[in-house]
């Protein structure tokens, strides 16, 4: 298993380089111009000069190589410097000065390093989208298991109904509906997420909880709907297998049969779905973040796409690609743990 992981990680490097090149070419090919948001009152000659100042005058391959250099060499050196200087984890190491003032990956919208903004956006995305996902998984698994175990019971029917409605009604609608009910009519929760809130007391913690309730609910409902369906169907498949009859015949308790044998064997599709979803957590929930003004990574990406801020889109997309590759590998490793018969050599 270890050699498998090492080999896959090693092979991931060329894969990622290819992915980064494909993303770069795709963004190049996509119609759009960083000047789209500049008012029409700015004359075309000025816009042309602004484009040149963004580096758009340079040929394609130079720009790609520059980005690769900045992302794989300059940015990590900034990160390592920061880790050894300020972070709690590695602060004891001697301070490094790898970063020598070369240009970092700069956003065209803000003219500032992309990674600084990403770091700034991470907390709210992790809090809101991460929690939404975590709750979603935590609700989905028991619902899926019990729905399958008591197939066509009232519980199952209600669960099916809620999860299908939860999935088929889009978040741009449920989000606004919650705001209208709970912010406008009842005034319980704020409709706009305050990203500058610092949690340092009970009151500010409660404030944070209140502003997270609605976005987390919307996301949890959506995620739970999807995952519980896969959990249920996979459990159903396994509950009728011969080994279940054997286990029961052996006199194992119902609990041990269902949670021990059936659940373990049903996890493969569920693990896949959960692992597929984690990179999307980092990608942020574009619509939910917009509706509740969470301004996390999803909002950053969509804003950058609308403004045709190519360095930002390229960097964000590539970070997501990195996570996708890593989590696919994690899923593969988990398959081997769940079902030792699976081998990849």
């Amino acid at each position, binding site marked *: 298993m270890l050699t498998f992981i090492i080999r896959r990680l090693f092979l991931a490097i060329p894969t990622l380089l290819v992915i980064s090149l494909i993303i770069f070419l795709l963004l190049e090919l996509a119609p759009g111009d960083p000047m789209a948001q500049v008012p029409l009152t700015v004359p075309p*000659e000025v816009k042309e000069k602004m484009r040149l100042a963004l580096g758009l005058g340079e040929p394609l391959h130079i720009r790609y190589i520059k980005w690769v250099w900045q992302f794989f060499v300059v940015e990590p050196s900034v990160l390592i410097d920061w880790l050894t200087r300020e972070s709690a984890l590695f602060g004891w190491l001697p301070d490094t000065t790898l970063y020598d003032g070369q240009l970092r990956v700069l956003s065209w919208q803000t003219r500032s390093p992309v990674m600084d903004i990403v770091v700034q956006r991470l907390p709210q995305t992790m809090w809101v989208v991460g929690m939404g996902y975590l709750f979603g998984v935590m609700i989905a698994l028991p619902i899926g298991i019990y729905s399958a175990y008591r197939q066509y019971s009232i519980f199952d029917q209600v669960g099916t109904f809620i999860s299908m409605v939860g999935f088929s009604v889009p978040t741009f609608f449920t989000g606004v509906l919650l705001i209208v009910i709970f912010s406008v009519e009842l005034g319980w929760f704020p409709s*706009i997420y305050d990203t500058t809130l610092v949690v340092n007391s009970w009151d500010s913690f409660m404030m944070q909880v209140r502003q997270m309730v609605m976005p987390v609910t919307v996301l949890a409902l959506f995620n739970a709907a999807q995952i519980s369906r896969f959990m249920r169907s996979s459990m159903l498949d396994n509950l009728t297998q011969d080994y279940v009859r054997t286990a029961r015949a052996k006199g194992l308790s119902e609990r041990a049969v269902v949670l021990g044998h059936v659940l373990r064997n049903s996890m493969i599709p569920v693990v896949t779905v959960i692992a597929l979803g984690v990179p999307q957590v980092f990608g942020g929930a574009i619509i939910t973040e917009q509706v509740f003004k969470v301004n996390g990574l999803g909002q950053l990406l969509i804003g950058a796409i609308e403004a045709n801020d190519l360095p930002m889109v390229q960097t964000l997309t590539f970070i997501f690609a990195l996570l996708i590759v890593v989590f696919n590998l994690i899923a593969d490793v988990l398959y081997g743990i769940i079902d030792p018969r699976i081998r990849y050599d």
Partner: protein
Amino acid sequence: MKFKALMLGAVASFAFAPAAFAQRGADGHVNVIYWQAPSILNPYLSGGTKDLEASSLIIEPLGRYDQTGALVPYLATEIPTVANGGVSADLKTITWKLKPGLLWADGTPLTSADVVFTAEYCMHPEGGCAQAAKFEGVDKVEAIDPTTVKVTFKEAKPNPYGPFMGAQAPIIQKAQFAECLGAKAPECTTANFGPIGTGPFKVTEFRPNDVISLEANPNFRDPAKPAFATMTLKGGGDAAAAGRSVLETGEFDLAWNLQLAPDVLANMAKGGKGEARSGFGSLVERIMVNQYSADPSLPEGERSTAKHPHPFLSDVNVRKALSLAIDRPLLVEVGYGQAGRPTCDLVPAPAIYVSGRTECQTQDLAAANKLLDDAGYVRGADGVRAKGDVRLKILFQTSTNAVRQDFQALIKQWWEEIGFEVELRNVSASVFFGGDPGSPDTFQKFYADVQMYANNFDGTDPEAYMAAQTCDKIPRPESQWQGENIARICIPEYDALVAELGKTGDINARAEIVKKLNNMITNDSHMIIPLVDRGRVTGVAKTLGGFTLNTWDSELWNAADWYRIK
């Protein structure tokens, strides 16, 4: 919420202040929401309105336009004119006098050297300055003495208020930006995110594309202002959410640019927490009529170019029929309500430039039909008119936006009633308004027969705006499809008149020329079909006092005068 706690605290601590707005910082906290989030606070590196307006809280120009479009001095003692000797008789120089004793937020004095530096910063050839047009034609900028600056133009400049006037051209601090000239501009992130200014507020934290935290500038020139100690400018979301947060939940005090359907806005205002105010500037929603053929069967590179005049839209009677078929008052009622007025002019303001023609405001389907009949276009079996092989089939495109799609549906129906066949298309705004020469969907390429969008002009002088419609500014493949003459208008008399405008200094004579130019391309030839004079709508909380809606400058132009109504 955090700001409520802050507000209560501030109110409590200043409860014994005699007059609420007589003391700086006495009114606590104010919340502003922009549904487009500011990305940078240096207006010279970004032309975006959101960035200009946010930065106007911090950095200021020598003079601004007020809500009537009149010029008011800010950092200058007075607005230089020919009458007071500030502008030379040959219109080639303008001399600004700074107010005495001005301080930057960091306590250092502001001098004419900072003003000279600002011009140097924006005019640097490698800087890609977004406001370079403001410094167009400037020969040199010199400091006569620490409080006097003289701008010399290469040629006579009838409107010398380009440099250092309005939200687009504020003064930046030389000490802070000295190392940021030209290609180095983007490396100065700290300066671009937190410029030191002379405005009522200074930045405490800037989160790009998210939120700006500000506090009162301790060195602001009026010791009693601003009344608010701190401000939060939140960005993101959409217009409906911004409107809701001011008008319905009362979480915010000011919401910028509430472009919403009138009945939605009216319903929100029933929340009672605030009101929607509107003001009018020079923004006109219009239909551009393509003078060239965009037929998809033409070879690439020849569509929408002079090689192929439009088969029927080059006929003035057909264009006039299109204009006659539109019920402009109804469009306003459906799409803009109090924030729109029907118009027949490309220049809807200032009043001195307005032609005042209103005959287009009455829909006349019968007259439109008659025009087409007389021009020889007869209805076929399917109700669509044709003359020979020429069928009146048009492709009508615009950017994606709820109001524009409603307009498209309405106009399509009217045009079908007079015998056109209309196909609609909408394009995402980031593609439509982007100038990517590789995309077929930009408004410059205009691969359609008619298209609708809005445009305005900076400040109060429409010269550059009118000059954009001359023959040499037609977008074409040789110019990488760049150019502002989107409708492809090419009238020699128009071009001659534009040249004359550039030489005329007298304001009344200029106004006469602008009216003539306006009518040549709208009311007389219908190459541009103006629809709606669009105002700006701002949601203002009932407890926010002192806000004056200004459409000629930054909307936050008088933030120093805001106060809390208790």
